[in-house]
């Protein structure tokens, strides 16, 4: 790994002040450190944001669950409050990576990285999330721009994510057996305002499958998805799965997600 200067910020203000065109924020580091070791990324300054108190904690109200950006996956998975308010969200967190990754990796880090196969981005789209940053609030719909690309501006820091509590929901992941990343992950959430079906792992960026949402709005059952055809033109095709196989996984995973909704 190439040398850099390590800074530990104690407030959001201090962190954003330290940021430059050649810096990056460090949270759990579960992607960032391996990327720097492989020389895929390198920075002059690395600004650790984990010691910022405002970035920690879980707050549950009747309508939403607000999770601090530096909250670890293990803490979301084990939170009794999250388990009660949105069981699909704590369950998603409990199956990210492996135990050691969950002991370090954070929510903010995951969505800032926006890996096309990461789990959390699908939760943000399915649960109508609002991403709180050092500057503003961004709707999830406008946040995930493309592969590893978000609406974040240089030096903008995610402080928390606000998830809307659905009537019922479930996340079904078909994991790659080696990496545990989603080959396909389908997050179904039934809100008063309508059903969201968010899909990760299948395209270059997380997206909502509107045809499925329409069918489930009319009839919220797995059988409503029978006969829905998935367009394969935008689907990833790689050594793990062809586009056609992913299309099949999307349909079967979506059905399972609907069946397990609670």
């Amino acid at each position, binding site marked *: *790994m*190439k*040398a*850099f*200067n*390590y800074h*530990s910020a104690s407030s959001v203000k201090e962190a954003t002040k330290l940021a430059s065109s050649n810096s990056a924020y*460090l949270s759990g*580091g*579960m992607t960032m*450190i*391996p990327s*720097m*070791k*492989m020389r895929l990324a390198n920075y002059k300054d*690395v600004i*650790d944001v*984990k010691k910022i108190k405002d970035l920690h904690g879980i707050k549950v109200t009747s309508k939403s669950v607000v999770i601090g950006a530096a909250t670890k996956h*293990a803490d979301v998975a084990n939170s009794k409050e999250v388990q009660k308010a949105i069981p699909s969200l704590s369950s998603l967190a409990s199956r990210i*990576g*492996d*135990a*050691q*990754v969950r*002991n*370090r990796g954070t929510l903010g880090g995951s969505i800032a990285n926006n890996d096309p196969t990461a789990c959390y981005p699908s939760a943000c789209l399915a649960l109508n999330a609002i991403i709180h940053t050092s500057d503003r609030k961004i709707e999830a719909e406008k946040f995930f721009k493309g592969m590893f690309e978000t609406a974040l501006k240089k030096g903008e820091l995610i402080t928390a994510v606000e998830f809307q509590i659905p009537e019922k929901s479930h996340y079904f992941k078909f994991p790659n057996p*080696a*990496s*545990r990343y989603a080959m396909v992950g389908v997050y179904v959430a039934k809100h008063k305002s309508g059903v969201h079906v968010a899909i990760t792992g299948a395209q270059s960026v997380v997206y909502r499958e509107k045809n499925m949402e329409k069918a489930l709005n009319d009839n919220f059952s797995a059988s409503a998805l029978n006969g829905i055809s998935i367009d394969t033109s935008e689907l990833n095709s790689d050594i793990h799965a062809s586009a056609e196989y992913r299309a099949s996984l999307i349909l079967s995973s979506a059905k399972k997600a609907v069946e397990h909704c609670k």
Partner: protein
Amino acid sequence: MKEVTLEVNGKKVTKQIQDHTLLSTFVRDQLNLTGTHIGCDTSQCGACVVHVDGKSVKSCTLLVADIDGSKVTTIEGLSQNGELHPMQAAFKKHHGLQCGYCTPGMIMSSVDLLQNKKNPSDEEIREWLEGNICRCTGYQNIVAAVKEAAKNS
């Protein structure tokens, strides 16, 4: 360069490190604790698992600067008064290893499992050890060892 102070296996150590020093190289090269193995060096294999403030982490993906002031336990810190830790004894008894390269990480990870779950099922053991790769044993004896350690602790 930075000065950090850590408690490693119960002993306070203060060392000069570079900002980008990883915990795995720090314990091996600066503290001569070579029981922590570096396998894949990409945080997938789990040979480098140690405990930081009581929780298992992959030391090849952790900056020492990041954990200044923390307590670190490596495989060398498990045995007490010359007695093997119950997890080490169970791995020995059940032959939960062949070449032994993954073993320090396997044991550190398994000890953390029992901190979280006292009596894990086979499935829970296998799930927890997803981040620890063994290419010799086929995992059968590792699972048996963890079950025995759970019974004895």
